[in-house]
């Protein structure tokens, strides 16, 4: 039996931030979505901006984001998250506004919205979960699927002549003058998670400066859609996705 004395000396070093609801997540074991949710909500908690933050979720596996993220949340129609976020930010310019989208949502059906949101330099944070597949609808090829990748709609592997090339949309938006801070991160190790956290923190700190769009790609996984165990999935991601989608900053604000 534990003595009262021992209990009193126990220090809490890690707990659920108040910005994350006490709800079991529906994500598959090993999925990156849950980790990104947690890190994002930790930052919002630590910066003390919970009451001033508004999120826009996509249609994709993260449709239930409102269930976990304890800030004002709206799920937009498929691909339209950054457009809805634009409307919100324009009428509530003092709020911290972010969109959270998958690769199908942001880089296929929402490509137009993505390009124009960044090109306008909309003062929001766009979080982009690139798992190289349409997770929610059962593992079809996404624009970010890599060459050779077998999905339910590329039974012989993705071929460039048939399906085109993987779309590096983060590189594309980096070119736009409205982009203020663009970075590519991941969540497969503790060190990677810490780096993502710093990137999210920086993005929210930049937002009141009204200097343009912050864009964070998270190279992530989809063990279910890829038909792999979580460990296999992370290994596959490191081996096949990182060379194509290298981790690191693509555009950092100029020091002045």
């Amino acid at each position, binding site marked *: 039996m534990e003595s009262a004395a021992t209990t009193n000396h126990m220090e809490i070093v890690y707990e659920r931030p108040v910005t994350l609801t006490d709800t079991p997540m529906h994500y598959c074991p090993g999925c990156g979505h849950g980790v990104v949710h947690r890190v994002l909500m930790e930052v919002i908690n630590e910066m003390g901006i919970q009451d001033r933050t508004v999120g826009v979720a996509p*249609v994709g596996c993260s449709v239930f984001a409102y269930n976990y993220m304890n800030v004002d949340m709206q*799920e937009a129609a498929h691909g339209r998250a950054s457009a809805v976020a634009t409307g919100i930010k324009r009428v509530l310019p003092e709020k911290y506004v972010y969109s959270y989208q998958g690769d199908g949502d942001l880089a*296929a*059906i929402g490509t137009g919205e993505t390009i124009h949101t960044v090109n306008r330099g909309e003062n929001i944070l766009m979080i982009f979960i690139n798992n190289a597949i349409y997770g929610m*609808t059962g593992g*079809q090829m996404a*624009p970010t699927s890599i060459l050779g990748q077998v999905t339910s*709609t590329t*039974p012989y592997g993705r071929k460039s002549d048939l399906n085109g090339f993987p779309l590096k949309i983060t590189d594309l938006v980096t070119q736009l003058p409205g982009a203020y801070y663009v970075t590519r991160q991941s969540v497969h190790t503790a060190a990677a998670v810490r780096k993502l956290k710093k990137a999210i923190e920086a993005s929210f700190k930049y937002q009141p400066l009204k200097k343009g769009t912050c864009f964070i790609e998270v190279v992530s996984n989809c063990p279910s859609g890829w038909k792999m165990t979580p460990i296999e999935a992370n290994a596959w991601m490191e081996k096949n996705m990182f060379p194509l989608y290298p981790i690191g900053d693509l555009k950092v604000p100029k020091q002045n």
Partner: protein
Amino acid sequence: MTTLSEPKLRFCTGNQMIAEGAVRAGCRFFAGYPITPASGIYKSMIDLLQRRGDVAISAPDEISALAYCVGASMRGFKSMTATSGPGWALMIETIQYALMTETPVVIAFVQRLGPSTGGATQGAQGDILLSEFCTSGGYTIPILCPSTPAECFDLTHKAFAWAEMLRTPVIVLSDKEVGMTSECVDFARLSNQAPPTRKHKSDFASSKMYDFAERVEVPEYLSVGGMGKVTATGSAHNKSGELKKNDTETLEVLHHLEEKIRSRRSELAVTTFDGQAGAETLVVSFGITARTMRETVRNVRRLGKKVSALSIQSLFPVPDEKIKEAMVGISRIVIAEENFSGQYRSVLAPLLYGKEVVGVNKIGSMITPAEIEEQIV
């Protein structure tokens, strides 16, 4: 003595059978974007067409998916895409473009619960009005509605025939239950014929893009990349396909777009009538609910009640003659459909004048035999 062919049984979903029906009808081009409950058609078409060396491609959204199909069809390729409510909303622009340019195309629309993203895995028959009345100007779009996997095959096959012969977009309006449920299908009983194909022009020199004397005529096809110059536009145009305002010939073309379909509504009617002598109640249904209706009818007849039943496979153009025939001697009409307002009932209302009309309606789950039975007196 009749010889019956050996049954060739396979366990298939309605979605797979739409794909099989399309390929049998000569479909050589498919473009898709994933969406539950229609993704099975996308996957099956990739599997079936790529194996044959035909084109099955992934689009970045439904707007592109349908536009790819229209482009391929402009060259004469039989083309299809598949979607559900949210994707359909994005396709409406290009459906109108296909209608206006008289380009055949088939759209498999597998309904789920709406509005908006609605319920991706919940069935519904809530898009009857949305699918039919989606054109500016209010043109008739032919709609076929299957209730079984075998019907998915037959009606998709027919949809290609209609699209080709009428030069217009045709919809196969399925639903989640029909699309995603696996059932036994006897392939030996399915058509092994390809349906007719549009007539192509042979005389290029004198040909106008849309050559017709009477509004009801379907002009011969001038395909893109062929011998004659093609001029197609989604804007109002004359018979040469030139953008015009409201001169007589342009208005004639606009009337023709509707008349070529409306004038053929008797030959396009597809219904199954199960009449009973002396019945005063007629039950009308379609799609998945037609199966519930057929079950109900079996049950109540066993109890000694008299009832007739009409399953409608061709929702549009409305098979008005078939409905009137089924109504002879009937005083009470029960219309069962899985939406809250009775969408098809509202379409049929003008035909049912003077009858007692009752709707069996529901959202969120399938209508049960007991719910229809309650309305059979």
